[in-house]
């Protein structure tokens, strides 16, 4: 039986460096190697785990919307061709560029934490650039909607335009959530209380938005 434990000392927990070593939510601080007075933080990274789990749900939602699109396309006789607004392509570049600037920000933050870069303004600037690119992307999506509107394609005009607005709209909402995350990271960094896992979680989510957009663009390009 797996539950059989003959001698209690044999199971004194896992090694602290192993990550999720378990501490009932308490901080898990262990002496840094070769430097007993200094400690390293091995607390579980809740935000990071949380974002991964949340992204599983986001993935599932878009999978459901995709399957709805495929079934709806096959079911109705009213499926027309729709030319995607050209602004989507430069907009894609903007979103991908924001992932790059976020990675640069990550390096600058590490540099700042290690004392290589003394001014906090440098990583802040890269975060601000990322934030601006994100906002630019949302503005670009809005331009795309205006373009469709100018062509007389509204939400209810036909099934293609319905799916276009739903896909881009739901994605844009998620991007706005990511922007809120970036603002949170910036405020934490500004007060020098940013935890590595908070940044990692926000970055993970942000990169996922880019990947998700590439997928959505592909689905829209293939089917609409």
């Amino acid at each position: 039986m797996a539950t059989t434990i003959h001698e209690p000392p044999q199971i004194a927990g896992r090694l602290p460096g192993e990550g999720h070593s378990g501490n009932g939510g308490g901080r898990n601080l262990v002496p840094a190697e070769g430097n007993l007075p200094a400690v390293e933080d091995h607390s579980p990274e809740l935000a990071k785990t949380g974002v991964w789990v949340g992204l599983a749900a986001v993935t599932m939602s878009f999978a459901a919307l995709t399957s709805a699109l495929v079934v709806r396309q096959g079911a109705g006789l009213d499926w027309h061709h729709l030319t995607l607004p050209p602004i989507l392509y430069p907009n894609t570049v903007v979103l991908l560029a924001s992932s790059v600037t976020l990675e640069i920000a990550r390096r600058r933050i590490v540099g700042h934490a290690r004392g290589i870069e003394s001014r906090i303004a440098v990583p802040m600037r890269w975060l601000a650039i990322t934030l601006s690119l994100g906002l630019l992307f949302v503005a670009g999506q809005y331009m795309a909607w205006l373009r469709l509107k100018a062509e007389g394609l509204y939400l209810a005009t036909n099934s293609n335009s319905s799916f276009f607005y739903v896909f881009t709209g739901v994605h844009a909402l998620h991007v706005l959530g990511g922007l809120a995350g970036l603002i949170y990271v910036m405020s934490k960094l500004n007060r020098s209380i940013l935890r590595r896992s908070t940044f990692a979680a926000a970055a993970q989510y942000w990169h996922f938005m880019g990947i998700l957009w590439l997928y959505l663009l592909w689905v829209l390009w293939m089917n609409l």
Partner: protein
Amino acid sequence: MHDMTAHAAAHHAPPQGFIRKYVFSVDHKVIGIQYTALGLVSAFIGMALSWAMRIHLAWPTASIPFLGTLSPNGAPGGVPTPEYYLSLMTMHGTIMAFFLLTAAPMAGFGNFMLPIHVGAADMAFPRLNMASFWVTFVGFVLACATFFIPDGPPLSGWTAYAPLSAVGAVAGPGQGWGQNLWGLSIALFCVASLLGALNFIVTTIDLRTKGMTLSRLPLATWAWFINAWVSLLAFAVLLPTCLLLVLDRLGGTSFFIPGGLVINDKMLPHSGGSPLLFQHLFWFFGHPEVYIIILPAFGIVAHVMPTFTRKPLVGGWKVITYAMAAIGGLSFVVWGHHMFVSGMSPYMAMVFSVPTLIITIPSVIAVLVFAFSLYGANMRFTTPMLFCLGFISLFISGGIGGFFLAQPAVDSYLHATSFVVGHFHFTMGLSAVFAAFAGFYYWFPKMWGRMMNETLGKIHFWLSFVLVYCVFMTLHLMGLTGSVRRYSQFVADFMVPLTPTNRFITIAALLLGATQFIFFYNVIWSRFKGPKAADNPWQATTLEWDTTSPPPFDNFGGRQMTVYHGPMEYDGDAFVMQTSTEKSIAGT
């Protein structure tokens, strides 16, 4: 070590003031109690709605008290119109399935117990946890608000099939704002469930205390953990489905509304939508949903039973956990069995019939684990144990009906008869309720620090158990005669001879409802007058019994728990707590 606990305690100082402490609390224990209370209120409302329906079915002309006041249009003189009968049914299903059965066993007991089971001070994201309760609460208020708008609640059932649910007020009373509120309510419920599931998963992964390996996780926590994954993936599908439904209703889109649909001599301006698409999306959520309801029930029974059989479950933690995980996984590939007669391709029916029969294997394994674990038990017949036994009985009785319904050929006769009503009330409704009662009687001493009255508990159990069979076994028989599910009156020739049977069911249902007042009385009396509970009144092993009753704000009074044993180390009167440093009991 000291610094850490000091830090954890400082991080988690108890709040002052009534509002932060009991209303907008971030304490998982308070949130758990709030969810449990919401479940009890929902149970009462849902039960009252079922009484109205049952009285109308048995005495079609009888005036039902309060109904005429509640809805002068829907029930003139207290006699519900056929449409209002459907509204009652819709809200009975919605309130029971979502706000009682989904919320109470998972979010109620789970919120209270899961962090304690894993040895944590709170959930991973306490503020998110508070948000999930209050979002659920707003959803509940919106659902109930449908009773007080002029048209009344929607009549499309808890499954809200399109196009009836999608076309708007033209489809009948309650299909205007009633259905809008319903959609909003369920969308909020989805959001809350997603947040809750996220919290459960991260807490179980990241906040387990020292030595709390997965093999030592209490089985209820295993069930909540597996169930959180199922909820996360299923509600993530229902949420966009609600969005598309609301867009069809308010945005003029045609996701689910076919072209050329004529209602009341009026052609609707929609084209090309697929009602079947709605059923696919809904049941892709909806079938996992019934397991979302029953998995925590399995977990609670698996957690409670060993305490009173005084021996570990047959197969240890692995067999039951793997069975629950298999059920959770398979629940995503069986949704089509709700749609055998929907016009779906018969080949598809075959495709869904096979996994439906396969999912019975882990279900049967789980139930047989419970049944075989009784062999050689040193049984203590407490109220929670009786409810566990009741659960086993109900789940087996209901499950046998499942074999009939899983086969398309038999289902095309039984579909939409009261056989189905009896089946799902046994398997997911009453089984889950009995498990929740087992959990309630079992954890009440820990939650409120007082024991419940055993005599009243046993009376409550035996009356409920007998009456549940009177109601729902008889509904199976009614279904075999072909009596249709959603008819509000049984006036067709072949149904008239069934009137006495119908009255029998109604009387049993009313008595069953009355029996629950014994429970309500017991809860209130015990809460204030019950004998004080010891820390570990049941001689159980898991961490919740290793702290005071009720637990302090940080759960263990600043102690760092270290776990050395699995959760089922029982041997008659001997038992080893999970945190004990003694040797394990041989053979466990």
